[in-house]
């Protein structure tokens, strides 16, 4: 993992001191809310319905056990004993007092964490594949690239007041587990025929009110040019991106309105101008950063653990959990554990301080001190020996975190929605909870198979509904919550934006509507192996429309 150097430490400490002073001046009245608001937002402090909210960055979703323990401590000491893991691999605390926030930031700094640039029109926390450095299909670990981007983008003076926020995601596998093509810049680390590492660059992807799939702007970019090329994109965006209308200010709109070819010309001209300048990445710098992410010392162990195979035979629940929540690791004898924060009827992504402590302990003891936060609001233990799986499972079971539903219909993404969020127009969590209860039967979930269900409580799409195989968007219709359904979205390498299926459903109808969609799929699939998404792509929307909106029988 990356460790702060002297510069990082001093910078974060100075920033905490600066914010402490800003809070003091706000409380004394020296700063008005108009003065203070942009300052607090740049430090991740929002004002929500019930209280302030602090969004803490988890850079590219990677954290160690001390950091997880600190998050638990903050939840316990300053908040209401829980935190909410978000779809951007961050964590939010929903109840901090303004006066406590400088102390919280100081505590975070003591474990090399902060909340800088988790809000505002700047380059936000860079996200990455949550299986980075562990997955069997990886070409290269994306995190060194994400860390280099973090260092470059942190208080980059030119890019702190962009037309709108800017999100970058990096993956290092052909499988896209980070919804990379739905980011302002998406980077895929690849190897060319000569074995050299470089990047495929996408631009102009995004969700929100105008969902767009990122467009391929460069099929091959040498890794040494990553920062120069990103800077060229940002500079062109900063110059031409719209500032007159916040709903048209993201780079996706610029790409769409200008056209990729014209924009690419501008980017390439700027790139050629700066590519041999200070941003060219020296090999030794890349190597030094990469060294921080060197794989842990794995033991040479057999691919198969007999004790685990026996345990699976003895314990059906454990076998189910292994089958669903443990993914293939690049190292023989290891597995990647997804801890689904999606127990039946629970709020997706919420974890109590006690649960965070358990996660920290498990990460420390069984996963080489590493944990990840996924954009699907789960926590990952990336490097677990197969022979340790039973011990991990037992501990998770005791802590209420052993849901064997990763990737299934109840592994739901949901934004905080109207229960917390000042922007929301409808509730999301209660919808997720009701669906989770309706589909709680594990045999049924397994029969349905892979199905990504994503719920947003407003058009800003924090719940990624556009890329849900089934997406749900809550809106306000004349004071009542109404839920629109989209089908066929996908955030993986076969990126697709879901299609609106028809008129929306009231809060007390939406669970039945989802069940109708699922039943239609089950009755129409070619075989048990045809997933919901495959079936939808084959069938199109009509059978689902027919089931959801049966024509009224003629009188």
């Amino acid at each position, binding site marked *: 993992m990356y460790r702060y150097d002297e510069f990082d430490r001093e910078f974060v400490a100075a920033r905490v001191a600066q914010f402490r002073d800003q809070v003091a001046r*706000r*409380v*004394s*009245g020296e700063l*008005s*809310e108009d003065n203070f608001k942009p300052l607090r937002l740049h430090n991740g402090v929002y*004002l*929500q*319905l*019930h*209280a*302030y909210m602090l969004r803490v960055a988890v850079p590219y979703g990677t954290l160690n056990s001390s950091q997880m323990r600190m998050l638990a401590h903050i939840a316990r000491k300053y908040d*209401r004993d829980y935190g909410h893991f978000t779809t951007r691999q961050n964590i939010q605390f929903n*109840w*901090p*007092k*303004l*006066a406590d926030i400088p102390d919280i930031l100081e505590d975070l700094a003591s474990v090399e964490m902060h909340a800088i640039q988790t809000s505002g029109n700047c380059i936000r926390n860079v996200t990455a594949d949550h299986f980075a450095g562990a997955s069997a299909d990886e070409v290269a670990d994306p995190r060194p690239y994400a860390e280099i981007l973090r260092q470059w983008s942190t208080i980059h003076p030119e890019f702190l007041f962009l037309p709108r926020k800017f999100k970058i995601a990096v993956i290092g596998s052909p499988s896209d587990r980070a919804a990379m093509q739905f980011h302002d810049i998406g980077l895929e680390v690849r190897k060319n025929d000569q074995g050299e590492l470089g990047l495929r660059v996408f631009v102009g992807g995004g969700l929100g009110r105008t969902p767009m799939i990122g467009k391929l702007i460069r099929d091959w970019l040498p890794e040494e040019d990553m920062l120069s090329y990103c800077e060229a994109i940002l500079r062109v965006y900063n110059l031409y991106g719209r500032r007159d209308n916040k709903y048209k200010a993201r780079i996706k709109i610029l790409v769409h309105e200008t056209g990729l070819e014209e924009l690419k010309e501008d980017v390439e001209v700027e790139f050629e101008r700066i590519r041999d300048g200070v941003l060219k990445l020296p090999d030794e710098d890349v190597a030094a950063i990469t060294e921080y992410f060197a794989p842990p010392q794995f033991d040479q162990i057999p691919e198969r653990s007999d004790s685990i195979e026996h345990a699976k035979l003895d314990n059906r629940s454990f076998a189910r959990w292994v089958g669903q929540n443990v993914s293939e690791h690049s190292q023989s004898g290891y597995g990647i554990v997804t801890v689904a924060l999606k127990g039946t009827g629970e*709020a997706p992504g919420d974890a109590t301080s006690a649960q965070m402590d358990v996660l920290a302990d498990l990460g420390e003891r069984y996963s080489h001190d590493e944990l990840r936060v996924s954009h699907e609001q789960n926590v990952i233990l990336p490097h677990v020996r197969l022979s340790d799986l039973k011990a991990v499972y037992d501990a998770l079971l005791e802590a209420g975190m052993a849901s064997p539903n990763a990737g299934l219909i109840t592994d739901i993404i949901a934004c905080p929605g*109207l*229960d*917390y969020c000042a922007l*929301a127009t409808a*509730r999301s*969590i*209660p919808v997720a*909870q009701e669906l989770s209860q309706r589909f709680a039967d594990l045999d049924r979930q397994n029969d349905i198979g892979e199905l990504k269900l994503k719920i947003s409580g407003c058009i800003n799409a924090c719940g990624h509904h556009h890329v849900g195989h089934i997406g749900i968007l809550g809106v*306000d219709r004349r*004071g*009542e*919550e109404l839920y629109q359904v989209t089908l066929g979205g996908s955030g993986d390498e076969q990126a697709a934006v879901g299609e609106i299926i028809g008129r929306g459903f009231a809060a007390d109808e939406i669970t039945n509507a989802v069940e109708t969609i699922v039943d239609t799929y089950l009755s129409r699939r070619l075989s048990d192996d045809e997933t919901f998404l495959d079936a939808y792509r084959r069938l199109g929307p009509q059978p689902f429309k027919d089931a959801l909106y049966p024509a009224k029988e003629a009188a």
Partner: protein
Amino acid sequence: MTTLKTPIAFTANNLLDGEAVWLGRNGAWVKSVASANVFSTEDERKIAFEAAARADQENLVVEPYEIEVAFESGQVTPLKFRERIRATGPTMRLDLGKQAEQSAAVEIAAAAA
């Protein structure tokens, strides 16, 4: 004296802890919407608006705004669902927010009785 189509109250968040508050009687900001002062005429609204703006300037509260309210069973109740959630707490966590404090108060009163 113009009567408002719908009675209103003023709400904001406390500067120090961010808690939702309402403009109460005597110009104080209160933590329960039940104690909010309800304004029914244009003249009252103007006076209340000035009081709210003053509290904003004096850094007591943040970004005050008016909400529509009604009396339900004699209680001041916001009309909009969003404002009802602000007045109570997250709908799926009854142990959090004002609803938790209110139920705790009821429990204490019951225990004392």
